[in-house]
C-alpha cells in the first residue's frame, strides 16, 4: 500500500507544479479538481485494511465536493465572466515554476525537521502538505484574476487537509468535514462575487479594484 500512497503524494506535488505553470483557467480548475480527487482517495488507502462505512462516506463526500461541485461552480464562473486565460500574471509562469522548486525545498527542509506527534505513514506526507499550502498562498499572491486566487485558496485547503491526514488518521476527518463546509460556502460566495465583479466592471482583475476611486 505504501507504494500507492507515495505515488499519490508525488502526483499531488506534480499537480501543484502544474498549477504554477499553466495559464488556462479551465486547465487550472481541472488540475485543482484532480488534486481534490487524489486527496479524497488517499484516506481509503490509509484504511485499506479496515475500511469502515464512515471512512468511505467521508472520502466520497470529500471527492464529490472537490472533484465535481467546485469545478462545476468555478467553470460556471469562468463561462459567465468569459475569461479563458490568466494574462500578465504578477510573476511569470517559468519563474513561478522555479519559485515552486524553492518552495518544495523549503517544505522538505521544514517538514523533515518539524517535531510532530504521531508518525506519518510516509516521510513525504508533511512536506507535501506544506508544499501544497505554500503553492496555494503563492498562487493567491502571484496571480491577478479573482478566479485563480480562488483556486489558490482551494489548493491551500487541500494542503491543510493533507496535513491533518498526515499524522492523525481517524479523527481529523471530522474536522475536515467542518473545513469542507466552510470552503464550500466560501467557494459558493466567491463564485457569486466573481460573477458580480465581472458584471460591474467587465473584468475580474483584482489589481484594478484597489485603485478604484470615486
Amino acid at each position: 500500500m505504501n507504494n500507492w500512497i507515495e505515488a499519490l503524494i508525488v502526483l499531488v506535488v506534480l499537480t501543484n507544479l502544474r498549477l504554477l505553470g499553466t495559464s488556462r483557467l479551465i486547465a487550472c480548475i481541472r488540475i485543482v479538481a484532480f488534486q481534490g480527487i487524489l486527496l479524497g482517495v488517499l484516506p481509503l488507502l490509509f484504511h485499506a485494511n479496515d475500511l469502515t462505512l464512515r471512512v468511505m462516506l467521508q472520502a466520497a463526500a470529500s471527492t464529490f465536493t472537490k472533484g465535481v461541485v467546485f469545478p462545476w461552480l468555478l467553470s460556471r464562473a469562468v463561462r459567465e465572466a468569459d475569461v479563458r486565460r490568466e494574462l500578465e500574471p504578477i510573476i511569470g509562469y517559468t519563474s513561478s515554476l522555479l519559485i515552486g522548486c524553492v518552495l518544495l525545498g523549503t517544505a522538505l527542509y521544514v517538514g523533515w525537521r518539524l517535531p510532530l506527534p504521531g508518525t506519518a505513514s510516509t516521510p513525504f506526507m508533511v512536506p507535501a502538505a506544506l508544499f501544497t499550502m505554500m503553492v496555494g498562498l503563492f498562487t493567491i499572491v502571484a496571480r491577478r484574476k479573482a478566479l485563480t486566487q480562488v483556486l489558490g485558496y482551494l489548493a491551500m485547503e487541500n494542503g491543510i487537509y493533507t496535513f491533518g491526514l498526515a499524522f492523525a488518521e481517524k479523527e481529523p476527518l471530522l474536522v475536515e468535514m467542518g473545513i469542507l463546509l466552510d470552503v464550500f460556502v466560501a467557494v459558493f460566495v466567491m463564485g457569486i462575487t466573481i460573477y458580480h465583479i465581472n458584471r460591474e466592471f467587465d473584468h475580474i482583475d483584482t489589481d484594478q479594484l484597489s485603485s478604484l476611486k470615486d
Partner: protein
Amino acid sequence: MISIIHILFAVLLAPLALGVINRTKAIFAGRRGQPLLQLYWDLFKLLRKGAVYSRTTTWVFSAGPLVSLAAVLTSLLVVPFGGVRALLAFPGDLLLLAYLLGLMRFFTVIAALDTGSSFEGMGASREVTFSALAEPALLLGLAAMGRRAGSLSLSGMYSGMMPSDLVHHGGPVLILVAAAFLVVFLAENARIPIDDPDTHLELTMIHEVMALDHGGPDFAFIQYAAALKMWVLGALLIGILVPMHTGLPPLDVVAALIGMFLLAAATGVIESTMARLRILRVPQLLVAASVLSMLALVLVLD
C-alpha cells in the same frame, strides 16, 4: 566483450534509428516515405564530395564537425546499453558524459559563429540557451539515479535494475527521471516539440541552421554525430524503461535494441501528433523537466 559489441551496434545502427523515425512520420502522414537506409546513402554521398570553405572562416570551422564526432564517439564508451555495462566505468563518468556532450555542443556552436552568418549566430544562441536549460534536467536526473543505486558511475546506476522496479518501491522516482530524460532527449536531438528537424526556414530552426555552411564530409560528420548523440541519450532513457538483466548478455543487447527502435518509433509518433512549441514556450518545458528531475532527486534524498 559484449560491451564492445554494443558500441559496434551503436556505430552501425544509429542512422537506422533516424530512418525509423522518418518512416513512422511517413506512415502517419500517409506517405511511403524515404528508404529506411536513406541516411546511410546520404552519408556515403557526402563523404565522396569535397568540402568548400569560405575565406572568412578559420580552422575552428573545420575543427567543429571533427571534434563533435570525436566527443560523441568517446561518450559511447561510458554509456551502458540497456542492461549491458559500458566499456569504461568509473565513479563520476556521468560528468564525463555530460561534458563530452557539452564539448560537442560547444564546438558546433563556435564553428557556427565562425562563419559570421547572422542566421547561424541566431541558431547558436538558441541552441546554447536551450541546452543550458536541458542540462540541469539531465544532471539532476542522473544524480537521482546515482543516489538511488548508491553508485556514481553510469554502469553502476543502470545495473541491477529490473522492469518491476517501475511499479515497486521507488517507482515514482524512475518514472519522473524517465519523463525528464524524454524531454532532454527531444530537446538535445532537435526533435519536434522543441525544434523541427524537417524545417528549412532559418527563423524557426535551431540545430539545422548551425550546419548550413558545412558541406561534404564535414556535413556527413555532423549528421552522423547527431545520429550517435540520439543513440547515446536514447540509451540513457531505455536503460530506465527497458532494464533487462536476463543473465544472458546477448539477450539483453537484443532487448535494448528493440527498446531503442521502439523509442525511435515513439519519437516519430510524438513528432506526428504534436506541433512545435513557440520558441518562448520551450524554456518553460525544459524548466518543467528540470523540476521533475529535482523532484526525483528529492524523493531519493530522505
